[in-house]
Structure formats: structure tokens, C-alpha cells
């Protein structure tokens, strides 16, 4: 699942048991992710799921492959 939101796209991947790729071209930002990772997070119930993978944007996959 490739998505830009932790609480919808990535949450869905969790629900399906599939892996997930978070991109930063939409709603989620690095700050959001840091918040989720940080110790200041709210109770366990409030945590958004984390992706299994992250990349700056979808096109970056191609750019990286082209470097090979």
C-alpha cells in the first residue's frame, strides 16, 4: 500500500497485514512521523500506525533504480 497518510493509508495496510510505503508528498510530514516516533506520544491507543517503508516521493524509486 502506497499512501500519504498515517491514519488512513498506512492504517489500512496494517489492517490488511500488508506492508506499506509512506510518501511525503501529501498529508504526512517528517514532523508527523517524528511526533509518532517520539516519547511525547499520547497513550498507546492514540498511536498512529507506522509504515514499513518510507520514501520521499513515488518517483524517487525510479530515480534510485536509474542510478544503478
Amino acid at each position, binding site marked *: *500500500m*502506497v*499512501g*500519504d*497518510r498515517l*491514519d*488512513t*493509508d498506512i*492504517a*489500512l495496510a*496494517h*489492517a*490488511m*497485514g*500488508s*506492508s*506499506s*510505503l*509512506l*510518501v*511525503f*508528498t*501529501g*498529508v504526512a*510530514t*517528517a514532523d508527523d*512521523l*517524528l511526533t509518532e*516516533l*517520539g*516519547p511525547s506520544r499520547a497513550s*498507546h*491507543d*492514540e498511536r*498512529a*500506525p*507506522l*509504515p*514499513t*517503508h*518510507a*520514501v*520521499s*516521493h*513515488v*518517483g*524517487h*524509486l*525510479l*530515480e*534510485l*533504480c536509474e*542510478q*544503478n
Partner: protein
Amino acid sequence: MVLVSLCRNVMSAVPRTAIRMSVAAQDIVAAAAVSSSLVAAAAPPFDVIRTPAQAESFLADHDAFLFDCDGVLWRGEDGLLPRTVETLEMLERLGKRCVFVTNNAAKSRAAYVKRFAGLGLERVTLDQVVPSSFVAARWLAQNRPEIKKVFVIGASGLVDELQEAGIEVLTARSSAFSFPSSNPDSNEASTSMAELGKAVASEPEVGAVVVGHDTGFDFKALTVGLQPRVAEAATLCTQAATPCAQAATLCTRAATRCVQALCLASLFLERDDMGARRLASPRLPLQPCPHQPATPRLQPATLRIQPTSRPTPMRTMSWPATAAPATAASSPPSPQPLGAPLTRSAASRRRTSPPIWSQPTGSTPCNLRHVESAAWGSATAHYRGLREPTLLAPRCERYALGTSRRAIQVGRSTAGRPGQSRPSCAFQNQAHLHGWRSAGH
């Protein structure tokens, strides 16, 4: 009218998806190193793809990709993000299956294919696109075939999909609900209440209300959708349904805003002292409308429900955290005279199988995002569920069931935390994938 202004405020309070500038993924790690307080983030429990080797390994590990659209392939109306076309072409070349999933119920599949083509993705076909409008229509057609006619609060895409599924559609803009205003200076909403009630009464075959994102959502749509008979039909439809479909049917995308408005309005209408606590819900970002009088002038004669001994809780809206009561399926509410006031017994019957907007307080508070993600999940899960009904359904149902936060915990415990020993394939279980492939993909 106060209700009108409330709805509009609810609709406009949540802007279009907030679009922010792209952030390089590398920044996460860099920023984490700088911020000593975020120790955990220094080694994020997921793979940040930064090297060609990582990218190749990622691609090799996955056979199918489900893409969200806005914010992933494009941003709003700005057009495609850089190198998106080439990336999708590369995936196709590598034999990967790509499906585009969106919780946007405003467009039909055909409209999405057209949009893809306009953006340079001419090879995207109808069966690669799964918007929630399609899921809702398909679910209704498959699971409630007896419903031949629905009332829709939503955009044209939702209407198109429903019609394509062979379901007749009524909207607030249908001729059935158009009345010449006898007095153009009068308050239109209050004068047309009775007429709307009669119009609803003349449409007994409407079996469900389907709610989607609707920029034209107005008092009329709200009023018709709230007519007791229509509301009961919707309740029947959703409570007998699986939670997945319930989310897909009633909560497609920003529909949640409409649903909240419906919740709110229905609570108003059940109260005698309307207005006394009309802004009591702390979860709704309501602003008083400067153009409307401070006191409500709405007199819902045809919608009034006799007060019961137990006052309607007004604290927060809530979303059912558990499965719908079994009584809903076994003893469906008997039909009420259309447009007639609900009697006390009818009101108590409604409490036995409460509509979603009057769940008792004490269950998990409803949050727009929760419901939205449930609908979102259902769209994708349903698509896959068609191929893997037995394997996926329990998870999906649990996902869509509670507020998604709670269900995510279920998903996590089932799927394992990222970074832990989980197989690095698209779907956790290779058998799933194999079954999916052999089913024609």
C-alpha cells in the same frame, strides 16, 4: 436557518486535504539525529528507502501495489508529481500489478480513468480504479439487492456508480423535491418542511440513504435524509450489513461531515427545547453564522419525536465500537406512516436498534478521521476481499468496526509491528498472494 448554517460551517470547517511541500525522506533521519529528545527516531523502525540497493530490494519484494491517489500520484489540481508516469511504467515493465484506490466518492471509476488519461496515464483501465463510490454501489447491489432506489447525498460520481449498478437514485435536486416557493421572501427551509415530508412519503421504495462527499449539501438534503422513514431504511441497511460495508455505504469520504451534521440535526429534532443546547457538542468545529439569527426558527412539525423518559444524550457523537445489536436483523422496525410524527413506541423502538447518529454516550467518541479511515479501509479491503473473502474479511471487519484506532491495534497484533520478524513481501502471507494471483491477476 440555524441548521443550514451549522451544516455549511461543518462542511467548510474542514478544508481540502492540507497540502504541504514535499519533504525528502532523508530529512527524517537527519532531523532525528539533531533532536536528541527523539532518540527512538534515530533508528526508525521502518526502512527509509535512500539507496539504489534499497529501492531494488523493495521492488523485488513486492508484486502488487495499491496506490492512494491524491498526495501520492498527484497533489490536488496541480497535476502529477515528478516522474510518476515513468515510475508506473517501470512497475508495469517489471510485471507489477498496480491498483489505484481512493476514498473519494465524488468521482466514478469512469471519471477517474478519464482523469488518469488526462494526466498522461492512458493505460489505466476501469478495473484498476477503486473509488469508494464504486464500492458503495457494488456493495448495495450485491448485499441488498432488494433495494432498488436510494436517496443520495453526494456528488455525481456516486450517483453514476449507483445507477450503473442498477439502482435508481433520488437526490435533493431531483424533481420530486422541487417546489415552487410560494413566498420568495420567506424562510425557505421552514416552509418546505411539510412539503418535503409529503414528497418523502410518496417515495416509499427508497431503501437506503447513501452519503458521500457533497459540496452542494444543503438543508433540503438534510431534511429528506432525516425523514423518519428514510432514516429507518438507512438504519436497517447499515445495521444488517457487515461493518465494512456499513462504512462504505454511509461514510464515504467527507461524508462523515454530513453524517455528523445528520447526527447533530437528529439530536436537535429529538429535543423539545431545541436550541437550548444546540451548540453543546464540543467535537464539532462550529462557528455561529453571522448572517443567521441567534435563535432557531425551525419548527420540525413533521419530524418531531415524542420525548421519552430518558433524555437524548448530547455530549458527544459516538461511533459504535461493537457490532450492531443482533436485534436489528431479527426484528426490523415495522413501517411507520410516512412523514407522520413518530410515536412514543416508535421512538423506543428506535432506541432498541439505534441509528448511528444516536448511539448512547459512553462508547468511543466519533472522530472524523476514524470514520474516514474506516471507509477508506473498506474500499481497499473490499476490493481484495472479493478475491480473498475468508482470509481478509475478519480483519477488515474488525478494522472498520470500532473507531479505527482501536481496530488498528487489532491489525497490529495480527500483522505484527513493523521492524519485527515479518516477511518482506507485499502481503504478509505468501499463500494470500498466490491465491490472489491465481484468481486472475
